[in-house]
């Protein structure tokens, strides 16, 4: 009886904890998916080496155009701006991860090209002033 108690309790507790963790993860994913979808007007921000180069309101773009970003070590990226989305179409970096990431139209994950130190992020147009504000210090 006592032995049974000892072996059974952790199993139920483990299941409960697993369920709790799964629930939290699911809620977070749902939240990310929701913020990704509900954004109407987006502003793209292009950073090179941490400095903001351009801020492009994507809803005002009518015809696609390209921008060239020269990098510090001779690396170069060509960005294409389309109505509602932005992406890197060509790069001379070795792995071309930024090109493979394709076009982004959601403010969830930014495009980053590490060899060129280029970051393109999207943020909702209305509160872009609040959300692009960099923290004074990052401590943890």
């Amino acid at each position, binding site marked *: 009886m006592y032995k049974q108690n000892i072996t059974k309790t952790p199993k139920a507790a*483990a299941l409960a904890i697993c369920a709790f963790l799964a629930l*939290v*993860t699911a809620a977070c*994913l749902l939240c990310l998916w929701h*913020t990704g979808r509900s954004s109407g007007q987006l502003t793209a921000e292009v950073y090179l080496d941490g400095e903001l180069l351009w801020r492009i309101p994507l809803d005002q773009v009518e015809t696609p155009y390209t921008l060239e970003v020269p990098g510090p070590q001779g690396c170069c990226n060509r960005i294409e701006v389309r109505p509602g989305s932005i992406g890197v179409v060509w790069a001379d970096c070795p792995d071309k991860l930024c090109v493979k990431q394709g076009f982004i139209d959601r403010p969830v994950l930014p495009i980053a090209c590490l060899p060129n130190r280029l970051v393109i992020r999207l943020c909702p147009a209305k509160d872009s002033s609040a959300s692009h*504000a960099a923290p004074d210090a990052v401590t*943890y």
Partner: protein
Amino acid sequence: METKKLTFLALCATLSLALYAAESALPPLAPIPGFKLGLSNIVTLLLLRRYRPRDAALVLAVRILLSALLFGQPLSLLYSLAGGLASFAAMCLSGSILQKKLPLLIGAMGGLAHNGGQLLTALAVTATPGVLAYLPFLLPAGILTGMFTGLCAWLADRYLPRGPSS
């Protein structure tokens, strides 16, 4: 407290501090502020598994104070304390209902609580609701990194010789 145990716990605090220092020398894994592996939590998990919560809490407090003194800015002590307290409470609680088994899950709870506690502190300190945008990233990240440290603690528990008895 017995001298042997005091020495052992001091050694654990040093190990934890060394893990913390080694981790802060690594490049960040993801460009999300607050995202980290939390390697020094391995020591806390191991002590929780082998000794009483009091001993683990002591080592954790020493590690947090020393790391804030050695590496930190003034505010980092607050964030460290909030994360440490939250994760310690979560790991104690889940450890007692799991009867110290399954360190993977205990670690996951600890990581989750650590990131949650830290983000709530950041919310209170900066008074900007915008930091909550990191919550959906940081909570699953805490679960994943917590599982990793839990795995490390489990392996450490298997291979490290036993210290002085509690």
